[in-house]
Structure formats: structure tokens, C-alpha cells
């Protein structure tokens, strides 16, 4: 009994620590700029100013914020979709076709898993400036579609979930290889691919470095980059807009998280890595 109370109390304290910044964000999004300074940080101010703050975020700099939200959706959604499809195809090929050189291809992919993406962002920037991709959406989208770790996972999924006999049956029925993949292979891999999509979505949504390097034009920025730039204006006159903007941007993702809980299989991602 005593152990139960102590344990739960400890877990509760940690939960308070985790929720503290979120709570502060919610409370602050309802305050006017003046109240941010004058009222206690962890409780609501005199008057409810949420509508005014939302209005401020949406109208600041000619309505850039809603554009940033849309861009984020394009980068994270489009990039994750592309990355998942490419990884699924490559992983399926590595698992199901014993072609020559397969071992070498797989070894290269595994080597790439160990190289952290931020460390190649600077050379990527230099390369993109040569290719004329700087300051375009493709300059962010295309690199985000390359996920060696995704290929590694997709290969493991394909090996476990797609029986070779089913592919043979398809071939005997005269179906082409592409058709077999899109009607049989991808369906059997689907649950794992949803997980892969989610991980990739969050990874791109988290990636701030690449858009920061590649994009000059404010209208192309994702919401993270826009908020950092607003935040970095030292006079702080945009504080209320930054707080409210930060809150608005994470609400849909948190809701998606809670509703898609069953697809968050960390063990799928982590457990399959043998060390």
C-alpha cells in the first residue's frame, strides 16, 4: 500500500514536470502581451485574450502563419508519404528478390543508417545550390524522402509479413511483378508502413535545420522555422503571437498522436535493431 502511494506520487511529480510547459503555453495563449509580464505565469490573467491572440497570429506579416501551417503539412505529409513508399519498394526488393549484389546494397544502406542527417546538411546545402534547388519546396521534400532506416525496417517487415509462396502464386496466375507488389506486397506490409509513415512524419516535422538552410523565402517556411524567426526578434514584441502560434501548431499533432496510439510501436522500430 505504501509502495503504491509512493510510486504513484513519484510518477505524478514527473507528469507535472512534463505538463508544466504545456500548461504554461495554454495559460499564456489566453493572455494579452501586458498580462504575460504582469500576472503570475502559471495562472490565467484578468481577461480572456485568446481570440485576440489567434487573430494576431493569423494576421501578423500578412497572414504568413496559416501559410506556414500548410507548408508544414506539405513537407511532413508529402515527405513522409514519399519516404514510406520508396522505403517500402526498396525494402521489398531487398527482402524478396535474391538478385546479385543484394548484400552490398544492404550493407551500404546499413552504413548510411549510422550517419546522422544533420551532419550532411551543410554539404547538402552546397550541393543544392549547384542544382538550383535552394529556396524551392523540392529542396526540402526530396532529401526528406531518403530514409535508410526506413528501408532497413521495410525489409524486416517484408521478410516477416510477405510469404514467398503468395508471390509465386501471383506469378503463376500471370501477374506482373509491379502488380504483385501493389496488390499483394504493399497490403500485407500496410500496418507496419503506417508506423513507418508516422515516425517519418514526426522526423520531418522535427527537422528544423534543413529548411533553415535551404529556404530563404518566408512564404516557403514550415511553422517551426517561422516561429523561431519571430521568437528571435530580441525586442520581444511578438511574444504573444509566438506563444499562441506554438500552441496552435502542436494541438493537431497531439490529437493525431492520441488517436493513432495503437500504431506507435516503438518496439517495431527499436526492437528490430540487433546490437
Amino acid at each position: 500500500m505504501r509502495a503504491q502511494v509512493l510510486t504513484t506520487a513519484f510518477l505524478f511529480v514527473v507528469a507535472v514536470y512534463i505538463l508544466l510547459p504545456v500548461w504554461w503555453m495554454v495559460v499564456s495563449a489566453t493572455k494579452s502581451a501586458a498580462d504575460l509580464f504582469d500576472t503570475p505565469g502559471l495562472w490565467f490573467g484578468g481577461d480572456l485574450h485568446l481570440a485576440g491572440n489567434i487573430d494576431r497570429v493569423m494576421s501578423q506579416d500578412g497572414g504568413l502563419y496559416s501559410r506556414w501551417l500548410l507548408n508544414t503539412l506539405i513537407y511532413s505529409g508529402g515527405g513522409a508519404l514519399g519516404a514510406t513508399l520508396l522505403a517500402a519498394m526498396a525494402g521489398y526488393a531487398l527482402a524478396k528478390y535474391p538478385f546479385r549484389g543484394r548484400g552490398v546494397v544492404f550493407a551500404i544502406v546499413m552504413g548510411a543508417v549510422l550517419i546522422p542527417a544533420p551532419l550532411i546538411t551543410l554539404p547538402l546545402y552546397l550541393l543544392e545550390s549547384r542544382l538550383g534547388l535552394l529556396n524551392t519546396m523540392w529542396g526540402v521534400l526530396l532529401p526528406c524522402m531518403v530514409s535508410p532506416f526506413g528501408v532497413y525496417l521495410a525489409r524486416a517487415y517484408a521478410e516477416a509479413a510477405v510469404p514467398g509462396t503468395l508471390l509465386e502464386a501471383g506469378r503463376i496466375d500471370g501477374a506482373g511483378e509491379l502488380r504483385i507488389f501493389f496488390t499483394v506486397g504493399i497490403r500485407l506490409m500496410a500496418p507496419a508502413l503506417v508506423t513507418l509513415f508516422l515516425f517519418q512524419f514526426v522526423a520531418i516535422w522535427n527537422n528544423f535545420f534543413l529548411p533553415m538552410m535551404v529556404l530563404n523565402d518566408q512564404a516557403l517556411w514550415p511553422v517551426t522555422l517561422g516561429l523561431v524567426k519571430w521568437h528571435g526578434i530580441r525586442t520581444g514584441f511578438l511574444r504573444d503571437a509566438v506563444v499562441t502560434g506554438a500552441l496552435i501548431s502542436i494541438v493537431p499533432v497531439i490529437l493525431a498522436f492520441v488517436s493513432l496510439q495503437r500504431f506507435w510501436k516503438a518496439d517495431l522500430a527499436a526492437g528490430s535493431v540487433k546490437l
Partner: protein
Amino acid sequence: MIGRATNRAALIFLLPFGALFVVFFVLPIGYAVNESLYKLKRSGLGFGTPERVFSGLANYAAVFRDDTFLTGVRRLLLFGIVQVPIMLGLALVLALLLDGHAARFKRFFRLVYFLPYAVPGVIAAIVWSFLYTPEISPFGLDLLDGDVVLWSIGNIVTWTWTGFNMLVIYSALRAIPRELCEAAAMDGASAWRIAWSIKVPMVRPSLILTGVFSIIGTLQLFNEPTVLSGVTTTVSKSYTPLMWSLQVALDNNDYALGSAIAIVLALLAGALSFLFLRLSAWLTRRGVM
């Protein structure tokens, strides 16, 4: 059936990923390596277009001689030695408690701890930077002061990643056969004893995995200090080596040196991960863990 048709199909499946992989992954690395071997040489008075000359490993020597780099690396090592054990220790304790019998509201806690994973690192850094700014901080402290700002960054990283690491360890704990723990309990082992002698050794691979992730993450520390450098002068634009590589490349237009820094960091990350793996293997053999 290993025919030419299937070989061609495999090629078609690999091609889209392969093409993008070569252009956006392999080429930049080759480009950086090549770039790092050259130096811009200006004529005596600095007029005229500088000449690009092969300089071997001179840029790498320059990286290791630079005080900014050495200070940055020392800072990261200090950060890693303190922050990583705290974060992973907390993640392990939380995972063990959520896996055990003593806690209540486990589903709720698990969800709350995982919540920061949905918040991008830079947004977490923005919110914490408000909480650190003396004029609006509810704590009434200056957490952006030069003496403590490194640990304020550590707090942001801990807040963001503890839950994710906890979930990785927790997933491994759930895979341990229940009978094993029940048998130990029947033999009179305490919950502590079961946790330390059965559960922790069995989730060792996931602890090592989170350890490697954290080491690599520490060396590429960028987002949090970059956000803080926008609101305080105690965090400079060259606070971490990765930030410095950008400053060198973009502000000073020295792409060669910037590329050399990035390559050194990648090699350092690889070397430290390798050492960590060797160390944990050694500890296992000695029966420490």
C-alpha cells in the same frame, strides 16, 4: 525463380530510392570530403579572385587547433556525461515503474510522458526559453545566465527525449516472459531484486540502443542552443561545433573548413558510439551489468 525478369523488377523497385539516395546522401558526403581537401588562397594583398588550391589535411589540422572547436567539444562532452545518464536513468526508472505492479493510472502516465515527442525540439526550446527569461519566468530565476545556461539546455533535451527513451525500454520490458518474474517472486525475491537482477539485464540491448542514440544526439546538438542564441547573448552563434560549422561556412564563406568540421563530427560520433558499444560489452563480460 531467379530469372532476368525478376532481376529487372528488383532494379525497378530499388531505383527510386537508390536515385534519391545517391543524389541527396552519397553525393553530399563526397562533395564535403572533396571540398575539405582544398583551401582558398588569396594573393598577397587580398585583391583579385582567390585561388583554390589542394591543401591535403590542412583544414582538419585547423579544426583541431581552433579554440572554438575545442571549447565546443569540451562543452558537449561535459553535457553528455551529465545529461545522458540523468535522462536514461529517469527513463529506465519510469519504464520499470510503469511495468511493475505498484503504480496506478499507468495508461495516463505513459501517454503524458510520451507527449513531448509530438512537440518539435525547437518549439519545446521556444516555450522553455520563455520560462527561463527572468521578466516572464514563473520561477523568478535567471536560467539564461552564462553559468547555468548549458544545464538549461540539458533540461530542454531531457524534457523532450525522456519519454521516447522510456517507451523504447518499456517495450523491451513488456517482452520479458512474465513467468520468469513470477518464479523469482515465488522464490522470495523482492520487487527491487527482480528489477535489478532480471529486468535490467534483459533490456540491456534497448539501453545500449538509447545510449548510442543519445551520444549521437549530443554531438549534433543544434536546435535548442540555436533557439536560445536568438534571445540571449550567453549562447553564442558558435556554441556547439555544428553551429560553428554553419557560422564558418555561411558567415565567413569558408565552405572547406565548414565541411571539415562536419566530417570530424561524423567521425567523432562514430568513434564514441563504437567505444560505448565496446565498453558495454566489456561491462557485460565482467558481469557488472
